[in-house]
């Protein structure tokens, strides 16, 4: 039988693909399947509990696991910084795309937190957030004193403000309760989660997203802008009708990637800065998986949590794809 050139080429391609695919099978595909199998068992690294198939038991337990839902909410809360960071990136990119002098210097400076992000920066921010001796609160205190803010507030409203306790406080800007999924007005304020969000924005704003926007903006056809200007469109109208639609695919890409990253995030911050505290408010889903598997040794259960996370990410991505096919015509 005669084989076509394309079919013969499969052998050649297979040769080139072999190293990568082998690694992929051993370290990605295999583990994914294995993880699913493990999530159906009560497997424990310590061997204190006899191995048993529990089938969907872990998933049922997960549904009733209040900690999981709290940590899920924490994860979502920490993602609230993403839109801000993305908007910030866009603004920076718009500012930088004006052919100013020194754009390379600005770009380098803005990118600095992103390139150095990691344990060192988290340790740095932990020091910055120290409630009394950290420079952040020192500056707040100085401002309060210099401008006699508390005196004025006291005279006007009979209240006063104190600097936030940052990484030590369970408070948050939405007033989320610590113990159940819900709101509690007393929890309103600035706390550990907000501190992590602020740090996240500082790191991400001048990072990859800004570079992506910048690249898209350099390719923006000037004719479109000029045509709109000739029609008498103001700056805002040009942005709204020309630039923003043009950036839609980039925005879409950034949003999807941020979403996927955000759902998996929070591990390093929790491990390095807070240990998941105070009162579990900085525990995210990925840190919960780590804790369950490597501190409480419940590997089966941890696998179930990781699969739930996987499914959430999968669904979110699918929805995003659907949306993009409808809205983005590129």
């Amino acid at each position, binding site marked *: 039988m005669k084989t076509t050139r394309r079919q013969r*080429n499969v052998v050649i391609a297979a040769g080139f693909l072999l190293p990568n695919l082998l690694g992929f099978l051993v*370290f990605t595909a295999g583990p*994914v399947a294995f993880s699913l199998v493990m999530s159906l068992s009560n497997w424990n690294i310590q061997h204190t509990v006899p191995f048993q198939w529990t089938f969907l038991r872990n998933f049922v337990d997960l549904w009733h696991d209040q900690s999981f839902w709290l940590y899920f909410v924490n994860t979502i809360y920490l993602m609230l910084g993403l839109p801000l960071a993305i908007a910030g990136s866009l603004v920076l990119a718009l*500012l930088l795309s004006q052919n100013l002098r020194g754009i390379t210097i600005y770009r380098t400076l803005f990118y*600095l937190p992103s390139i150095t*992000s990691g344990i060192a920066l988290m340790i740095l921010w932990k020091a910055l957030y120290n409630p009394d*001796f950290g420079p952040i609160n020192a500056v707040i205190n100085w401002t309060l004193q210099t401008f006699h803010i508390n005196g004025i507030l006291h005279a006007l409203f009979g209240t006063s403000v104190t600097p936030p306790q940052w990484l030590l406080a369970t408070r948050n800007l939405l007033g989320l309760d610590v113990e159940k999924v819900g709101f509690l007005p007393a929890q309103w304020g600035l706390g550990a989660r907000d501190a992590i969000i602020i740090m996240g924005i500082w790191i991400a704003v*001048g990072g990859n997203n800004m570079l992506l926007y910048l690249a898209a903006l350099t390719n923006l056809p000037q004719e479109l802008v000029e045509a709109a200007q000739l029609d008498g469109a103001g700056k805002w109208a040009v942005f709204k009708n020309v630039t923003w639609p043009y950036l839609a695919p980039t925005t879409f890409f950034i949003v999807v990637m941020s979403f996927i990253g955000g759902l998996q995030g929070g591990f390093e911050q929790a491990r390095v800065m807070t240990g998941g505290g105070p009162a579990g408010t900085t525990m995210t889903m990925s840190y919960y998986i*780590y804790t369950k598997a490597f501190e409480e040794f419940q590997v089966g259960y941890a696998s179930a949590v990781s699969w739930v*996370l996987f499914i959430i990410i999968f669904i979110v991505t699918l929805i995003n794809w659907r949306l993009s096919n409808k809205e983005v015509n590129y």
Partner: protein
Amino acid sequence: MGTTNTRRGFRTWWVRTGRFGMSHVILALIALTTLTPFLWMVLASFKALTEVEQLNPFPSVWHPENYIKVFQQIPFARYYFNSVFIAGWVTILTCITSAMAAYAFSRVDWSGRDGFFKLYLATLMIPGVVTMIPNYTLMVKLHLMDSYLGLIVPASFSAFGTFLLRQFMMTIPPALDEAASIDGANSWRIFWDIILPMSRPGVVTLAIFTFLGNYGSFTWPLIMIKSQHLRTLPIGMLFFDTIYGRQTNLIMAASVMNIIPLVILFVISQKFLVKGIQLGAVKG
């Protein structure tokens, strides 16, 4: 007509200057916000411990010996070596495996290629935490726990790298390898002699990305490394922080030393990095 032009010109000039001036002010302010934590870190690393918590920005007495103390208290040089060594191997292996796979996906025409590629790309979506636990048990079974190999091998296969290089190789004109294949060169020769040299910017970009990513890699080494002599910088920093956490000045000195190679690498390789980020984002 003429007057309008002049007025228009003046207006444009004014608007340009004014707006650019504003832009510069805003940009400078943002740059300052970005830089302040770094400045604090560098200055704190030269302070005496008692001075770290004080508001004065500059140390009253400079203590460069803080940096030496870090090396005395923890095997910092060893951490440096481990990080660079491991990230280096991962980079080399990733580039090789990715380039070969990218070649198969872009330059070899085989039946089922595009469908297979899409499937392959979909694996980019798998979150790392799903594979973390099984890979951990695999490493335990293979006795690669707590070894260089256990840190290097699992990290050396990247779907992202394949994707990035495929994007690059797609842009190389097909006439080149056709000519070579008429001359009788086999696929390996074409790959090694023609395509690989032509995708140099792509490979360099991938190399920088991979190196940066693995230099700062945290989660996997955290669960893999049990011995002190294998600790990488992030793990070493974490232990330094938990054990000697009260010596903020020394911690900051260690942090400065941790990020300096990154800054240098970035300044050198900016052009490639920016290109690569943009290329990686284009949908395939």
